[in-house]
């Protein structure tokens, strides 16, 4: 069946099966930045924004997205670049496999929360696992990113 949705602001009509998950649909349509880390909504790697809210694309049926707006990191390149700058200064970007999903979640958090602290950053991002960094450098980098109003 056909689904009409907006991918990073661009209207798309996608041919899908009712059982297709968004992650697979995106990969079939050459969006490589949304990657699979697990199959059970428990790692955060496949995060995309649905109407601005971070959701796990591995568990979201594409047929349900008629008329909806989906954002991947390609839709927030400037913000991702800025966050990467602060990650770089803290040495917070190691393997980078989850970093596009991190950028999306941080971006959503910035829109949603006022003046996040380290504690609120932790609880907002807790579903984004990272096995490389030990997390602390990321939190410092994210705070610096949020302070940067430019």
């Amino acid at each position, binding site marked *: *069946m056909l689904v009409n949705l907006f991918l990073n602001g661009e209207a798309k009509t996608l041919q899908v*099966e*009712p*059982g*297709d*998950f968004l992650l697979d649909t995106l990969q079939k349509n050459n969006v490589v930045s949304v990657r699979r880390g697990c*199959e*059970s*909504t*428990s790692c*955060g790697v496949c*995060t995309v924004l*649905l109407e601005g*809210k*971070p*959701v*796990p694309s*591995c*568990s*979201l*049926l594409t*047929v*349900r997205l008629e008329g909806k707006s989906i954002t991947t990191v390609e839709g927030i390149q400037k913000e991702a670049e800025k966050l990467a700058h602060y990650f770089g200064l803290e040495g917070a970007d190691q393997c980078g496999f989850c970093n596009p999903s991190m950028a999306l*979640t941080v971006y959503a958090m910035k829109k949603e929360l006022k003046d996040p602290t380290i504690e609120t950053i932790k*609880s*907002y*991002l*807790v*579903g*984004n*696992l990272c096995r490389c960094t030990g997390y602390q450098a990321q939190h410092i980098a994210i705070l610096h990113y949020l302070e940067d109003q430019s």
Partner: protein
Amino acid sequence: MEIRNYLVPKSLDEAIMVLNQSPDNHVFAGGAWIKNTLKKIDTAIELSTLIDSKIKEYPNYIEIGAMCTLHDLEESALLKQYFGGIIAKASQSIMGITVKNLATIGGTIVGKYSFSDLLTALLAIDVTLVFHSKGKLKLSTFLTTNYPVKDILLSIIIEKNQTLGYYHKVSRTSLDFAIINVAVTNNNNRYSIVVGARPGTAAFALSAMNYINQLKNITEQDIEKTCELAADELSFSSNFRGTKEYRKSLAFVYIKRGLKAVINHVS
């Protein structure tokens, strides 16, 4: 995932009709959990277009649309004001934000999940469920009854009152499922004690509640006795997250801490 048809029903009546046509037809609320629970679906019935997702305040009660996400629950300033904020706290203790942006209160209730954190908090204040066909039902009744005909949950109604609440989840890491979760409330000196993930769907510790609710003054010994009664009457069992014995010990400790938190005066 194998799904034969996807249906956006025009009305709740249509949705209920299709839902009851086959055991392989399912309604979709948030859908966060389908991957882990269902393998093959004949018709997936969309609910998001028919059911409200808002939290609304009325003079005497709060009504939560069944499609309200767990993230909206945890962020709700209104819910934080009532019952010691246990609904928000229970929601906070669940997995990560991406899942909570999908998962709904309705899906959580109807799934009767044995590991549920939210059910424990909701049962402690015994919320009222509004179903399309069955009408109003207490959560306690719903959890302990098997219904042969599938129905659709529309909203959850919570009476506003001065209930004090305590909620605690014990888990290996904060993202994990509970080894046990406990909610204790005090509604004008009527106490409720609920323990979930024993592992088993949230349940009242009824004899413990009867015992403590008869008392005029509550002493330290009464609290101990209440905790013992609760730990003895509830069924606990072992799985890889914890043994029966450990769960029982945790229930005792956290019911005690819960009671101490909500009792105004221990004599």
